[in-house]
């Protein structure tokens, strides 16, 4: 299974739409796409995980480094529309408490 990364830039924020699986094979690609965005001062990076049906712990690692990078560079990272299985990982690892996560698949990100 592959991971498709689609980035759309709007005035207020940049949305990253992901679909597929995030694992050890696709994680480097995600890192390459995500880190430069979090390095832009003041940017809101919204990551839509609606079509991500599998993520392993390597994926968590990418989001942690993106979070650290966002903090250092004064940007913001938001995760939206997580499927249950993916959200569970954030919950177990306690990351849901320190990341901006909106898990609800329906009802948008607000």
């Amino acid at each position, binding site marked *: 299974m592959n991971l498709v990364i689609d980035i759309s830039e709007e005035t207020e924020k940049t949305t990253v739409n992901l679909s597929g699986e995030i694992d*050890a094979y696709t994680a480097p690609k995600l*890192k390459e796409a995500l880190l430069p965005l979090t390095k832009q001062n003041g940017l809101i990076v919204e990551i839509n995980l609606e079509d991500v049906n*599998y993520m*392993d*712990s*390597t994926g*968590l*690692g*990418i989001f*942690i*480094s993106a*979070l*650290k*990078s966002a903090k250092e560079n004064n940007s913001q990272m938001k995760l939206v529309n997580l499927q249950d*299985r993916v959200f569970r990982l954030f919950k*177990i*690892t*306690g*990351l849901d*408490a*320190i990341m901006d996560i909106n898990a609800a698949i329906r009802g948008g990100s607000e």
Partner: protein
Amino acid sequence: MDEVMNLSAATYKDLLEHYIKTQDEKSLYEVEKVSKNFIKNSKTPEEIVNLHIQALSELYPNLKEDFQHSMNFLLEAMIAYGLAHQEYQQLREKQYELKTEIAVAASMQETLLGTTKPDIEGLDIGVVSVPAHQMNGDYHHFVKGKDNSLGIAIADVIGKGIPAALSMSMIKYSMDSYPEESMSPRAILKNLNRVVERNVDPSMFITMFYAQYIPSESLLHYSSAGHEPGFYYNAEKNTFTEIESKGLVLGVSPDTDYQQYKLKINKDDMVILLTDGVTECRDGERFIESEEVLDVIKQYAHLPAQEMVDQVYKHFERLQDFQLRDDFTLLILRKIV
């Protein structure tokens, strides 16, 4: 080497002559053997073309000059292939060397991180830990206190491969440096968190469950740093429940505090600790739900703890066609008195 070449050269010439005359299958089969011998002795493509040219000129001294030129042309053309072939050979050797070195590193790691299952009166302990690749990114450790208490750590480093596995040694040595007994699970995690945060690559982190069992009170004190939740089996009610624990993974935020919980353990109760290699097992494209993990555990619950974990491991190994995707660690404690 040259002897091989001369011998093969003679055979090659004979085979070629025979084949030109008869075109039979046998000479083709024979030349395949010669060819394998060339590979074994690292003969380059241009050497083989050269061999062919020599054999031809001996068999047909009056070959047309045009044809001879064309063969020399081919010889030149093969030289680049020869270089590529040599490079490939060198890479193969290099790869073999690396593999050997990793195997040495893996066995060193095994020695460094080795832990022995302690004998604790009234407890039956079983543990299995199997790496998916050469080096294990899972870690478990037992510490037997002077007061007969038992410290148990189970951890999973996220970020795969060798660097991840190496960072486990850091955890182990930090833990060894803590004064025995005086450390509560929450204090141990708080300390380790700082060590990991300072020393590990940002995309790497470690989950850990640390428990301390006090036999005199039949109490399990525990804290979790984002680790896959384990299960508690209540023998009286014959129920499994997820062991409640919340806490951030190690290495993300330097000033994290961990909550500590306690659990009363009665006779025949079990505590089941695992890593996500167990819950992330896949059956083809299907994921295993944690209920299924429990079903399998139940199936072997009548066995002693070590046989139980071995059987459960075998079950999931079979399910995944003996190809582990992730390191697999399962630890079971059962109170027997």
